[in-house]
Every structure is written in C-alpha cells, then in structure tokens.
C-alpha cells in the first residue's frame, strides 16, 4: 500500500466529514469542479472522450520526468467534473503500478459511490477504469 495514496484518501474523507447534508457535499464537489483546470477545447478529442449516457468525461494522461502519471480530466457536467477532480487528486502523480492496483475506498466512505455505480450513466465508472488502464499501459511501456 502506498502511503501517498492512503494519505490523500484520508484527507478527502476528513474534508467531507464537515458536511451535514447532501447539498453541502455537492456544494463542495461543485467547487472542486470549478477549480479543476480541465482540458482546453482543442484537447477535448474523441480519443479522450468517455461517453456516459448523460454527461461526457474527457481524460488525458501523460508520464512525467519521474515516470509518474499525470492526469487531466474534464466533464460537461460540473458535479461529474468535481468528482473527476477528486480522482485526479488521489491518483495524479503516482507511479503507474500503484495506479493500476489502487483501491479507491474513499468514494464510498464519503457516500458518493452511487455516482460510480456501473449502472450510473455519467461516465465516471468508465473514467476510473480508464485511469487504471493508463496505469497498466505506462507500466508495461516501462
């Protein structure tokens, strides 16, 4: 288990402990969505697009100088984008192998797991799968 990974998830869980109801939680998620840089229009390419039935998610990834993976994510729905921001915060900059094996327990801990259900039409579940695939691919590519 990677310390950074656990620490980041713990931080987020603490951050969300404050909120008394759903609306406050979403308020924060929306804020995170707004703060996330997202992708420039010209990078919203089809190859980066993960089509949910209702909202669209873009995900791009690259390997930095240290061999860690950097993610860029965006969505046309702000709540989806906020949740994507959380994923990027947790997984971004980690080594490929750790991403591939990451156990993302924080999502259910903060009560937003319903957004990641495979039957949810927002594309988030596919985004997480895609992040792990990047991990596997960069690992294989060495």
């Amino acid at each position, binding site marked *: 288990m990677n310390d950074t990974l656990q620490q980041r998830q713990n931080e987020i869980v603490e951050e969300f402990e404050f909120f008394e109801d759903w609306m406050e939680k979403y308020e924060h998620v929306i804020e995170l969505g707004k703060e996330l840089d997202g992708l420039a229009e010209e990078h919203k390419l089809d190859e980066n697009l993960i089509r949910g039935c*209702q909202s669209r998610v873009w995900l791009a990834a690259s390997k930095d100088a240290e061999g860690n993976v950097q993610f860029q994510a965006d969505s046309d*729905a702000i709540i989806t984008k906020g949740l994507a921001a959380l994923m990027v915060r947790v997984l971004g900059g980690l080594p490929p192998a750790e991403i591939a094996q990451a156990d993302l327990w924080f999502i259910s801990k903060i009560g937003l797991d319903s957004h990641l259900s495979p039957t949810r039409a927002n594309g988030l579940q596919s985004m997480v799968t895609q992040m792990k695939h990047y991990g596997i691919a960069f690992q294989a590519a060495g």
Partner: protein
Amino acid sequence: MSTALDAASVRLQFPILNRDVNGKPLVYLDHAASSQKPIAVIEAQREYLMHYHANVHRGVHALSQQATDAFENARGTVQRHIGAAEPCEVIWTAGATDAINLVVQSWGRQNIEAGDVILITRMEHHANIVPWQMLAKEKGARVEAVDVLEDGSLDLDHFEEQLKLHPKVFAFTHVSNTLGTVNDAQALTQRAQAAGATVLIDGCQSVPHMRIDVQALGCDFYVFSGHKVYGPTGLGVLYGKRKVLEAMPPWRGGGEMIDVVSIDNGTTYAGLPHKFEAGTPHISGAIALGVALTWIDGVGVESIMDHETMLAAHARKGLSSIEGMRFIGTAPGAAGVVSFVVDATHPYDIGTLLDSQGVAVRTGHHCTQPLMERYGVPGTVRASFGAYNTLQEVDTFVAGTVRAVRMLRD
C-alpha cells in the same frame, strides 16, 4: 368540466409516496418514465399469484379456467377503455416497444417495399424510430420525418409536404414524452389515410391522461405500455383493426398461436388474438392492467388531465423566474410535462441536486435524441406529473431547482 381531483386522497392509494429519499420525503415527478402503482393494482397482482395462478387456455381444471377468465376479462376491459370494436383487436405484448416491433416486423415486412417512404415525426420516442429504420434498411425503403416547430408543435405545412411522398405508413406519437405536445391525432390520421398511409399511433403518453377512442380516431394501430398507466411492468397493448390484423402474418411462433402443428405436413395458425400471442402470456400483468384502467376510470381521466395540466402550469410559472430558463416545448394545450434547460448548467447537475433534495425528475434525452438535435441541447430536465402529485410538491420542485441553479452558477 370534470370534477376536481382530490390529490390528497388519491395519494393515499400509492404506498411508495410515503417514503423518504436521501433523508427527504420523496417527490416523484418522473411519471412519464414510469408511473407509480395504486394499491389496487399491486394487490390484484398479488391476489392472482396467491389464489388463482395457473397457465391460461387449454386447461380443463378449475384454476386454469379461473385464470383464463380473469385474463380474458382484462382484455375486455382494455377493449372498452380504448373503444375498440372487439376484444380480439386487443393483443397483449411485452410493452409498447414490443407492440411497435410487432407491427413493423409483421405488417411492415409484408407491406413495405424498396423505395417506399415511412413517415414518422421528429418528436418520436426511439421506440417509434429505430424499428422503422431497421425495416427501411432491410427493405431499401426510407424514413422521413415531419418537422417540429420551435414551440414543440408539429409543423403541419411540412406534414402536408411529406404526404406528397405518398408514405405507406405514418407512425406518430399522440402525446410527446419530452415536450408534452398533444397532437391532433384524429386530424393527422384522416389526412394520412386520405393520402394512402396506414396509421400507427404511439399512445404511451396519452392513455395515462386522456380518454381514447380508437374507432373515433380511425387509426389502424394504437399502442401503449402498462407501466405508464399505473399498471404492471412487462406488459403492453397493441390495438389493431380486425381486418388489418387478420391480413398480417404471425410474428412470434410457438404455443397458443397455432392451430395444427406438424413437422411433416406443415403448421396452421390460430385466429385473433391468439395468432399474435405465442407462448405463455404475462397473466398477472394483464389482470393488473385491467385493474389499472378501471382505477383510472374511477378517478376520471378528465380530472386527471386537468389536474396534471394545472400542476404543469404552476411549475412553469414558478420556474420562469429563473434567469436563463429555456422551456423546451411550449405549445398550447400541452400535457403534464415540463422540459427545460438553464443557461450555463448541465441537466445532469440539476437532476442530481434535485435528487439530493428528494425530488425525482428525469434528465437526459428521454429516448428522443432527434429532438435534442432539433433544439441543440444535450438533454433536458423533465418533470412530469401524475394523478398523485400535489401543488405543494411542485413548489418543492421549483424551490429545489432555484437552489440548484444558484449553486451551479455561483
């Protein structure tokens, strides 16, 4: 004038409306996707399974006879409810989608030829688009659509234009599930038939809200789904004129729909309605649908329609105060559906924030992607109302939307 509906006493009959969602009382405004069920319907289905379930037809034992009688009585209830001439014009299907596919694959494959025009409208549900597209592809025919005006009403000039193509069939929705537009089904049917077309009407969103008389409409086919008329899931109805149905080949083969089956000497088919009802039917569903339609009659379908229209008007008024509000579908006389987008917000976000306040609305394309294309939106937020909704619920919904928009924009 119909008598005003007493929503509070109607509500009491819907057990699900007592529940909470996300810590808030449920406000169910997703009627057009699927209606909730009154206790009478739920209990009828349970009663059947508890006390007289058996396979129908062909049984000599009392249970089978009792089930068959209840099943066929339900067919009679549907017949009377939609004003069909005879019970055998009512065919049980697995849903409206299944019913349209039956027409397309039986009548359509028999009658549509290369070069033929199939006319639909741009406000159709996918169920009334895709089967025709599949048929057109198979036969080398083509699908044309009647345009929709900005307010969500059908472009009648374009309709007349399209009739000049001599479509073999005109398939259209009586009421739009996305816009709430109520089409003048009788006039459209007459014009299309005069131009030589066979007419199918999608009644999914009309049967829950309006009195239907298929003979007065004059259509060849009329379809609807049980789960949208306070009835069961897994069951729909195809009405067809006897003469039209009789001329059609069967679609599904199997038990019930045959007369004599022989491997060596060929097989002959049963008469209506059984010819189109292969296999063991959805017996409990049919019985429950009969109860649902009887329930609607008890409340009064005109009262239901008036009530829903009143709720929709109230919702529109409340929502209008929101800056950047754009209603999709504003035709006069529209049914109890309010569809909208708000500048600089995504329908998914509004839906999610309403959900966290206990309000269930539908967001997305509502299985009408060509309409989304028409209006240039990725989807809409849709609130749709049933007999059980109240003004107070509409207020909760409006306040929730105002709050959601504020959060998303700030």
